[in-house]
């Protein structure tokens, strides 16, 4: 346990070790540690940014969904309105068409009635002529009296 040169030897050793550590060990280790710290911090920041963006995207998606829902509702409303309009139009069209058909039918009926009346009148005239012919037999000259009978027929017709 004597104090001797070992003291100085130990001091020199100490300084050499400290110098070596300061020069070759501490700086690379610290730079590696700091760089990793920075990497991790960057990674965390990126993750946070990603999460933020995801939140924004979700909000945007919800908004888009809401918009499209309201648009769809509008489209349906419009379609319903248009359908109602089309039905109304069709109803109107069919009513006028029905009226037109009715009018045409009436006109045809009138025509038919007139024609029947004319026919009837002609038949009545010939019937009357035949009847008169039967009654008068030969006493009546068909040629002489046909003018008279035609006049009578036209009188009936006008009367």
């Amino acid at each position, binding site marked *: *346990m*004597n*104090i*001797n*040169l*070992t*003291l*100085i*030897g*130990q*001091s020199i*050793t*100490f*300084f050499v*070790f*400290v110098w*070596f*550590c*300061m020069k*070759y*060990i*501490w700086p*690379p*280790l*610290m*730079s*590696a*540690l700091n*760089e*990793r710290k920075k*990497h991790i911090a960057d990674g965390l920041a990126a993750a946070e940014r990603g999460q933020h963006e995801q939140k924004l995207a979700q909000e945007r998606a919800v908004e888009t969904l809401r918009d499209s829902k309201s648009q769809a509702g509008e489209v349906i409303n419009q379609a319903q309105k248009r359908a109602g309009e089309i039905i109304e139009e069709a109803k109107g069209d069919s009513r006028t068409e029905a009226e037109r058909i009715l009018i045409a039918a009436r006109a045809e009926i009138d025509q038919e009635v007139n024609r029947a009346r004319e026919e009837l009148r002609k038949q009545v005239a010939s019937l009357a002529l035949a009847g008169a012919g039967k009654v008068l037999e030969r006493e009546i000259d068909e040629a002489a009296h046909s003018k008279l009978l035609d006049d009578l027929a036209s009188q009936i017709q006008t009367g």
Partner: protein
Amino acid sequence: MSSSELTSGAYIKHHLQNMTYGQHPDGSWGLAHSAAEAKEMGFMAIHVDTMFWSIVLGVLFLWLFRKVAKKAETGVPGGLQNFVEMIVEFIDTSVRGSFTGKNPLVAPMALTVFVWVFLMNFMDLLPVDWIPSTVGWLGATLFGADPSHIYFKVVPSTDPNATFGMALSVFALMLFYSIKNKGVGGFAGELTLMPFTSDNKLVMAILIPINFLLEFVSLIAKPLSLSLRLFGNMYAGEMIFILIAIMYSAGIGMGIFGGFLQLGWAIFHILIVTLQAFIFMTLTIVYMDMAHSEH
């Protein structure tokens, strides 16, 4: 060296003697063959075992850490790199906590002090006879020397030369940075103008010697307490291991009991080994901080 012809006293003394290389009084150089011869060599002698183990352990530390530092990756670290980085982070946190100045020397010095002192202390946990008897056997076989004259102390921090060497180096750095940062005047002022001050110039003149006495003692106490704390703890721990080892030669019952004692003390000693390394490192940082900060 628990051969039967040795007494307990001789066994202990043998274990506490360093392998000393120096000049014999007759002028020849060589290893001391006894404690008395080592004493006669005076200052011009060197403890081969202390130097050997401290350098081996220091180089082991530097080699291991350099290996990691050379290929330190910023990606996911492997096992050894993780371990080294854990220690470095721990030292860095301690330095940031206690050291307020700016000096690129302090953190590497704290790392060196911590790991080196830890490794030197850790040699205490090796069974006390392993390495000394191996060296004794080697000496006897290779050189034909008497094993009882071959001394070998394995724990460098039980040699006051080692602890004083480190403490005085730290002290020298402390003085150097004190004067560098505060100037000679500032450093002298710190020694003489505190803690007692007075506005009266005459009273101040009386107070200066008192201040100097107090501050000088506290200044000198720093390296002394730093080295003696480590030395005392390690020396006492080593002594207890040696005492336990003596029990092995006192019959099988005592031997088994000694085995349990050694196990218990070794487990407890792991704490002391680490704690003393940590205290030495922390005080080094604190002293360096004192050298950098104004009071």
